[in-house]
């Protein structure tokens, strides 16, 4: 079983950290993982994306032509990457940031209002964990328990008191799928 994921959005939305958390969680579950950032002269507000591969076997390439899942957080990324999803794959997108939803009919599309839901939880930074929770609810690649374990590694210690809120966000994101 190999899952190839692309996460894309604006810098500052938590794109890279969401991917890193997912990769850490994969390692905790003893899977082979790769996290590959897009990089260049990046800045807050510029586009950012990362690739995560989680697999039972050794990962061949971190450069992927077609992904099993796309998590898309802004309009420019949707325009750029919609065609990168495999047929039968899935596109999960943040519906407050995306005006033109994906038009493909050969993939499963999930629209998640993660931003407005994060406002309800009184912390907009938690948006990425809500949509990650939604993604995790669409398959059984990684357990939420492992994500929480991973957050201890990804978040600096001074932010560890936020982990319960992250847990709430992950679970809430999962409920949005049902």
């Amino acid at each position, binding site marked *: 079983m190999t899952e190839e994921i692309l996460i894309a959005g604006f810098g500052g939305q938590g794109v890279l950290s969401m991917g890193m958390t997912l990769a850490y969680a994969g390692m905790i579950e003893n899977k082979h993982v790769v996290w*590959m*950032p897009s*990089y260049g002269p990046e800045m807050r507000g510029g586009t950012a994306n990362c690739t995560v591969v989680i697999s039972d076997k050794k990962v*061949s*390439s971190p*450069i*992927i*032509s077609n992904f099993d899942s796309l998590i898309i957080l802004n309009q420019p990324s949707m325009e750029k990457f919609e065609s990168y999803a495999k047929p039968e794959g899935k596109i999960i997108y943040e519906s407050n940031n995306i005006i033109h939803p994906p038009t493909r009919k050969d993939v499963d599309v999930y629209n998640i209002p993660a931003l407005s839901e994060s406002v309800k939880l009184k912390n907009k930074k938690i948006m990425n964990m809500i949509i990650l929770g939604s993604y995790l609810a669409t398959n059984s690649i990684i357990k939420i328990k492992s994500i929480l374990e991973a957050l201890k590694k990804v978040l600096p210690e001074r932010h560890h008191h936020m982990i319960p809120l992250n847990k709430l966000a992950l679970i809430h994101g999962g409920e949005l799928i049902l």
Partner: protein
Amino acid sequence: MSKKLLMKGNEALAEASIRAGLKGYYGYPITPQSELLEYLGQHLPSRGGAFVQAESEVAAINMVYGASGAGVRTMTSTSGPGYSLMQEGISYIACAELPCLLVNVMRGGPGLGTIQPSQGDYFQAVKGGGHGDYKCIVLAPNSVQEMADFTYLGFDLADTYRIPVVILTDGALGQMMETVVFPDYDIEANKTDHSSWATTGRKNMRKKHVVTSLYLKAEEMENMNLILQKKYREIEKNEVRFESIFTEDADIIIVAFGMSARVSFKAVELARKKGIKAGLFRPKTLFPFPINELQHLSNQADKMLVVEMNAGQMVEDVRLAVNGNISVEFYGRMGGVIPSPNEILNNIINLSELKE
């Protein structure tokens, strides 16, 4: 063995260098290898080594020259433009027969270029780069694990042959995260005796040690060259390393190193799913180059396809090795662009159709 960690390639290389007993690091920041300086700047001083951010790459390589002359385990790291600045020093170190580890995390060139990954410095690293007839051992990792493993190997080879060893990698391998396990490594057990040549002060009026790359008489200079060439032949005999995947029954063999070998591996998997017998041959050492193994494979395969992130550099060595036995095609992207698995797959499909 250490526990499994998730690290960037640059960080894994830096951590491995400390665990291998690095005593002196001299470098200058340049993307995409700056994590190496960051990591070593933070950790090396408290773990038994000296860290110096030099005023330039020219200074850094000459600090490496000085430290290795004193018999100290030493290293520098840079990317393309910085590596160009270091060439004079590398030629001196090679002639003075000193051990050191040089890391080039390649980015797109030529010129100041771009900060995205590339393999455009193959010629420079493998063929010399500086002046005169010298070689460096060149190691090409293709995973974060190998970024660590080849660091230990590089230091040990440098000591064994008293030669600069280059880890030739790229921005993608430097920036991406994978799991890595650091092997047990006993610094004391792997220590090489440098007492016959290192300039460590003339205690007890011992015979003086001279570290030099200057020989004014032509005969002496030629003699030094003969010593170097003999060493290079020895290295060619003993130190070739490579990986062969699905080549046993392959009609089309892709030859690639580093990151392009990772992407090519995926293309081979996709080709196999389509029923095309494709395989991958990956040199882990670029000097010494696996000439005999490529010759051997050319008796069995119909075609080779060399994939690189440059305009075609290693392909020349593959063609020399194969010596016209079969056709050797090339596919490459330049300037910081990584070829996608589908691009390579399309090339494999085209070649397999040409065959029929």
